[in-house]
Every structure is written in structure tokens, then in C-alpha cells.
């Protein structure tokens, strides 16, 4: 039966905290390793890009060697439609997502938790208002809303990510609200209040940290994936990250112009990068979720 971690006897808690790794499922360990590898690759790439430690200058053009294949002229992954080194641009491309993607996640999680706690904890009119807001955001296809904003203002990755963040907030809010209602049902919150705990402690420590962290982690990893895919779709429509700044999305788009002629690599390489990265985030989220919650098997 369900027992709160914080309500377990102290010895058992210490036991779990000491030996938590023993309980990890083999599969989760695998996922975790893969996820951590991907995340560290992303972070390494970010710093490689930030300190300009790249095999080639990513903006150096070579009009005699446009669209060359793998390994030609020392270009490990070949070149793009301007004769620029694909690998260097792929490494640099992570810059387009790293900080903006984090921003999207932070907005989604903080704003979503805020709304969720408001409506779950206080209920009543506030809940009605929050529900209306959530329904409103849900009524827009995200891509349409983003397309509208970038077409109306300017194609800026931060505009895109702010909207991705805002539109993801309702999902987080709904999950947290449900969790709080569930805890309320179990009189968990009432007893905490009766114990004289201050409200902020209940909300931040007992609700968000002890009970909602797996929700937050899953949503964070999903959010990163969505941010990358959204930018890719916008790149196809012409409104993603703009040249000469590389992003995986605009690289897939530029490469896909040659895909029908059988030149797969220039679009497939960044597409695979997108796939493996998002997969990494998903699996990391899953593994952390299972580890924190305890896998039911």
C-alpha cells in the first residue's frame, strides 16, 4: 500500500537512502547510463561550441566543396550547401537549444507548479480561473500559435521557447493539481497543517519535492524534446533559427533539399542527432522516475 517516504520510520528511510542503488532495476540503469551520456555529450558540445573548439570554422565557406560526402576534404560528416563543415555546425547547433530549451523548461515547470499549487491547494474560484486558463492554452494548436507569433513579430528562438514553456505549463499544472487532490483525500495535507508546519514548507518540501518530483522530471525531459522538435518544424516552414546561426532544425531543412536526389546524409545526420538526443532525455526521465518512485515490477 502507498506510504509516504517522509512517513516511513526513520531507520527504514536511512536504509533506503543508503542502499537506494541496490534497488535499481537493470533496465533503468541502462536507460540512466544512456541518458547521462547524451546529456553530458550535449553539455560537452555546448562548451566546445562556446569556446570554439571545433574541427573547422563553422562559418567558413568553401564554394568548391559544397555538399561533399562523408570524409571528403577532411570533413568528417561532409559539408552543407555552402561548403561548411557539417560536424562543426552540428556541435555548434546545440547552442540553439541549450539555454532556450532550459528557459522553456523553467517556465513550464515554475509557472505550471505555481498554477497547479494554486488550484489544488486553494481550490474554489482560483481553481476555476486556472482551469479556464489551462483550457484556453489547450485550445490552440501550439504550432499555430508559435507560427502566428514568429510571423507577426520575429523568428527568434527565445520567442519560440517562451511559448513552448507557457503552453506546457497547463499540463504540469493539471498533474500537480491532481496529485494535491489525491494527497488531500488521504488527509496528508490536513495532517501536515495540523502538525503546525508552515505553508511554504508544506508546498515546497512536502508537496512539490516529496510528491511531485517525478512529475516534474518527466515533464522537464518531455519539454526538452518538444522544444527541439518544435524548432525543427518551424525551420521547415522558414521560421526557425535563421542562418548563419546553425540549429539542427535548419540543418535538417537545408539538407532535405537534396534528399530526393538521394543525398541523405546532410539532413539525416542532424535528424539522427535530434532523435538520439530526445531519446536520451526521455530515457533519462523514465529512469529517474522509476528510481525515485521505485519501479513496480
Amino acid at each position, binding site marked *: 500500500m502507498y506510504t509516504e517516504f517522509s512517513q516511513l520510520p526513520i531507520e527504514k528511510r536511512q536504509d533506503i537512502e543508503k542502499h537506494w542503488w541496490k534497488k535499481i532495476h537493470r533496465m533503468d540503469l541502462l536507460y540512466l547510463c544512456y541518458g547521462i551520456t547524451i546529456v553530458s555529450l550535449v553539455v560537452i558540445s555546448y562548451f566546445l561550441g562556446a569556446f570554439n573548439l571545433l574541427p573547422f570554422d563553422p562559418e567558413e565557406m568553401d564554394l568548391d566543396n559544397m555538399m561533399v560526402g562523408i570524409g571528403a576534404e577532411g570533413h568528417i560528416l561532409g559539408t552543407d550547401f555552402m561548403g561548411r563543415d557539417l560536424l562543426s555546425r552540428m556541435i555548434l547547433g546545440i547552442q540553439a537549444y541549450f539555454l532556450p530549451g532550459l528557459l522553456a523548461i523553467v517556465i513550464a515547470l515554475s509557472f505550471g507548479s505555481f498554477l497547479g499549487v494554486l488550484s489544488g491547494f486553494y481550490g474554489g474560484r482560483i481553481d476555476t480561473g486556472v482551469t479556464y486558463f489551462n483550457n484556453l492554452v489547450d*485550445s490552440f*494548436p501550439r504550432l499555430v500559435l508559435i507560427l502566428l507569433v514568429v510571423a507577426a513579430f520575429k523568428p527568434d528562438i527565445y520567442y519560440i521557447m517562451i511559448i513552448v514553456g507557457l503552453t506546457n505549463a497547463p499540463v504540469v499544472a493539471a498533474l500537480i493539481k491532481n496529485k494535491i487532490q489525491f494527497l488531500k483525500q488521504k488527509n496528508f495535507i490536513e495532517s501536515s497543517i495540523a502538525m503546525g508546519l508552515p505553508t511554504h514548507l508544506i508546498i515546497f518540501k512536502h508537496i512539490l519535492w516529496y510528491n511531485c518530483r517525478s512529475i516534474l522530471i518527466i515533464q522537464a525531459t518531455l519539454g526538452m524534446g518538444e522544444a527541439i*522538435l518544435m524548432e525543427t518544424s518551424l525551420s521547415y516552414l522558414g521560421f526557425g533559427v535563421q542562418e548563419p546561426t546553425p540549429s539542427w532544425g535548419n540543418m535538417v531543412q537545408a539538407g532535405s533539399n537534396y534528399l530526393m536526389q538521394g543525398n541523405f546524409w546532410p539532413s539525416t545526420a542532424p535528424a539522427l542527432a535530434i532523435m538520439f538526443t530526445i531519446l536520451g532525455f*526521455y530515457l533519462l526521465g523514465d529512469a529517474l522516475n522509476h528510481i525515485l518512485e521505485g519501479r513496480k515490477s
Partner: protein
Amino acid sequence: MNTHQQTGDTWLSPVQSLAHKLNLDSPWVKHKLDFVMPMGVTIIRELLLALALLFGVSLVVFTILYAAPGDSFSLLLSGERSASATEEVAQSLGFSNSWFGQYSTWLINILHGDLGTSIRTGQSVFENVVSATINTLNLTLAAMLVTLIIAYPIAIYTSVRSATPLNGPLTIFAYVISALPLFWLAYIGIFVSTNVFDYFPLGIGLGVEDDMEIMQFLLPVLILGIGSGTVSEVVRFLKLEISRVLEEEYIRTAKAKGASIWRHGFKEGLLLPTSQIISSKIPFFLGGAIIVEQVFNWPGMGRMAWQAAQDRDFPVIMGIALAAAILVRLGSLVHRMIYIIVNPRASHE
């Protein structure tokens, strides 16, 4: 039927959760519920909510358009334009200049059932949006079906038999196909279709002379179903729901008695989650439809939205935003109704 019997303490009974969702805490409403069919209440509530939401949607879209630099009238005067010419055009089209003036004009017109005409083509927005919406609806419904066909076996297999060696690979497969860029997948799909099957998969109006027309609709539907990015979430959600239901007492009882758990688990474990996930994923599919419609020349809302956003074709953008919101609300309404139908207990409360 005794409704209090199964209200265990580990989960919300459908009645309770319905009451939560509908916000039916007040005694007056509860009392009324004894007399009015909950279905009717639900429909009325949903419709009122939908109206309020449509109002909100129009306000948001309008604000974005109004705050945007540039104006939609310059489109008509390519090249030669001046401030006064723009005024003239705006006047002749019957637009007032102030924020409030424009919005209230639009609102009054729409209350008369008039969505206006496209600035670009001069055609009726209503007619165009309706025909585009129907085309998009066809695409998205079929694509959802594809998504469910992929997601169900994976979800059921992995949640019922949780410790098989296929479990991991299946989950990863669901994740992988959700992580592929949609238009790249569409290009690959076309490449494979043309080069491997020697078949050109776009057919609307092209009148390719053979009987494979159904194929022309299959590829876009498949691509959107696979690549909309929702498979992994659908699998995750279904898994959660199925394993939750499998732990229910009445399922356990049924299992212990040797009865088929499927008959018991179907409604709770499959039907409800399905309608819920479908209704909540409509916006995603509509978003993905923009890409698929561009690639496959599908004459739907997505293509229209892209064109209109580029032209700042103000009445068309409004029309599409409203149509999309209506689809989302419809999805939600259908889900609520299925909820009540599946839980006849709700009508006895």
C-alpha cells in the same frame, strides 16, 4: 446499483472525480443533479465553457495581430504604397482603425454569423475554413487511428507482461518514432514510396491514372500518425492507466475468480483513457498537420494557416484559430460524454 460499495480509499471513484472535474461541490447543484440528466448538464456546461474559450482565443489572436508591426493591407498594394493609400484600402474594406473598433466590428459580425472575407483572395472565410477543416479532420482522425494502432499493442504488452525481454525495445521503439523530425520523416516516406515502390504518393487532383488512389491518402496519414511526436506520450499514458486498472479490486476479484479481465477492464482501462488521450492530443495533431499538409499538398487548415500567417490575412487567421478551438472543445465534449456513458453510476448520483 449501490454506488457506495466500491468507493475505495485508494482512488477516486468516477463519480467523485467527475464531481471534481465539473466542480459540483455545492449542495444545490448536487440536489439538482438528482433531477437533471448529467449528460444534459455536461453538454450545457461544456458549451458555455466553449463559448467563453472561443472568446478568449479570439481575443488572444487579435491582440497578437494588432500588436504586430506592419499591417495586412500593404499586401494588396505591392510596390506602390503610401500611408494614405493604406488608409484608403482600409476604408474601402470597412476596417476601423482603433483596437477596440476593429475587434468590436469583428465580434459583432461574428455574432451575425459572418466571419468576413479573406484579405488576400476576397473569398468567404467561413466557406474556406469549413472545407479546410473537414480535410484536416479527415487527416488527423485517420492519423490518430494510426497512432493508437501503434501505441495500443505496445502499451498493453508492456503493462500486462512487464518483465519480458521485449519490454525495453518496444518502449524505446515508441520513443524513437516520437523523436523524429516530422518533415524529414515525410520526405523519407516519399523517397521510399517513389524509389522502392515506384509510386508517387501525392494524388489530390493530380489524376494519376491508376486505381491506387487510396494509397495517396495512406502515406500522409501514416506519416502524421507515426511522426506527430505523440506515440511515446500515448504509450506512457495508456500504460499508466492499464496498470492502474489492473490493480483495481474488482479486476483482482475477477482475476481470482478466473473470469476474463478484459471484459471488466475494457471500459476503464481502454475506452476512457483512449477518449481522454485523443481529446487531449488534438492540438498536437493539428500542429503536425501543418507540416504534413505542406509536404503532401493536403488542402487543409494547416496550409491555410501558414499562408494566412505569412500574409497577415487577419480574418482567415481568426477563422482558423476559432475552428481549431472548436475541434479541441468538441474532442473534450465527446470525452465527457463517453465518461458518463461508461459510468452509468454517474446518472444515479
